[in-house]
């Protein structure tokens, strides 16, 4: 099968998606391998918990598959689409977890030695830091939070964020500019830009 995977790795996401729709499982597997890390980190940056982000990563892909009839991948990269799905999964987390509970239970345990407690100290520190950041972010309206995380923390372009959230590019630009202004005020009432939050 390795030769086949090597061959798959040359496809654009759009082509992989088309192949997956035709029932080619390896194409969907390649999409997962290509974007699992980005989806995982996006989820962590939204929920502040590595274990939850890990569980939800598979759910995002299962949800993408469930909604395949309504999805048309216009871009060559599937990442904006996946982060859009991830945003909705987070918003309806309980429902998504309920829907996929049985499916997730069917996932076999990792075949090789792997511990969920790996890097536990570092992960806890990161979760603590993320919680603080999210505490500030959550003071913004939800739709502005989406754009700060997508465009600033995940470095999506305005066009990609527009695709992810099904918005016009102009709306992304204006909403993001409002969000950044508001966030600057929250971080430093003197109006000085605080380093980090507004830079990728």
């Amino acid at each position, binding site marked *: *099968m390795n030769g*086949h995977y090597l*061959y798959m790795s*040359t*496809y*654009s996401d759009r*082509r992989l998606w*088309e192949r997956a729709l*035709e*029932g*080619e*499982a*390896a194409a*969907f*597997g390649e999409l*997962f*391998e290509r974007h*699992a890390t*980005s989806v*995982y*980190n996006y989820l*962590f940056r939204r929920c502040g918990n590595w274990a939850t982000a890990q569980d939800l*990563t*598979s759910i995002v*892909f*299962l949800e993408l*598959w469930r909604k395949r009839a309504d999805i048309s991948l*216009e*871009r*060559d990269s599937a990442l904006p689409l996946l982060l859009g799905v991830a945003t909705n999964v987070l918003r309806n987390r309980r429902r998504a977890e309920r829907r996929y509970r049985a499916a997730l239970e069917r*996932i*076999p*345990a*990792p*075949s*090789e*030695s*792997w511990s969920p407690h790996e890097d536990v100290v570092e992960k806890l520190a990161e979760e603590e*830091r*993320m919680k*603080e*950041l999210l505490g500030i972010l959550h003071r913004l309206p939800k739709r502005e939070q989406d754009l700060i995380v997508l465009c*600033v*923390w995940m*470095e999506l*372009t305005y*066009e990609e964020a527009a695709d992810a959230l099904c918005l*016009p*590019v*102009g*709306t992304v*630009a*204006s909403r993001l*500019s409002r969000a950044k202004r508001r966030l600057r005020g929250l*971080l430093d009432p003197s109006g000085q830009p605080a380093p*980090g*939050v*507004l*830079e*990728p």
Partner: protein
Amino acid sequence: MNDHQPPEQRAFPAALLRQQKEYLMSEIARDGRTRSRRSRALVLRIGTVGALAVIVLAALSLSGAFGGDSSPGPLTIDKALAAVTVAQGEIVHIRITGVDSDKSTFVQENWSCSDEPWRYRGMTETSGGGRQEVAIAGSGLHQVYDARTDSILEMQDETIAALAEPKVPGESYEKMIRELLTSGLAQGDGREQVDGRDAVRIVEKRPVEDGEGSENVYLVDADTGRPLEWRIMNEGENRILRFDIYEKLPGTPENLSLLDLKAAYPGATVYTDPAAFEQAVAKAPAE
């Protein structure tokens, strides 16, 4: 709170990646089994025809039917690679017309300069009527052009300023060409005519499994090595890319202005306030 940055990204745990990938694949396979069976039969038929065609072409090639350079080898690859390697200060201008197997077409045109700060302007137009045109630069300049209202939104975007190289909308065929030529799987495969030009065929065959496989035929100008056409064929589906333009321009001020949307559309209304741009675009009547 001194550090406002989110923690560095972590890789998805490797052991879980493999196991969850396999699980997802089994779910998809179960779902699409019926359709897969049908398409597989078709693929096998196409694969058989393709294999016969390859044998015939190889025989013709060995018998000298293509004449001259039937096994151009590493020299051809080097020449083709040199043609897409850009020197400092140069601007690359590419215009590609693409046709997919479903007959949908697209045109992609871009200008790029990798000198610091890098600059990029790109336009993509699809047969479905979609059009997107942007210009971005390592300085953080971000321009969006709306053709319906002939207006430009110009912003400073720190997200773009932080990128080491332009994040190109759509596929970067230049990058893909370089990957193809350095993959070790590409080799010279005779000659043919493309629009009356003598072209060298560079073929990349991907590993074949169960009769499935793919072939990339990249055609370059026999004299200069510049790209002419790229046929990406995968199991009955294909995409043909015609390089209408592939040129390297010196980085003169006049040429550098090609990377700026305001210079490209001097009559356009320029907005710096995203909300005003959004309003103007929203007000424009639909086509």
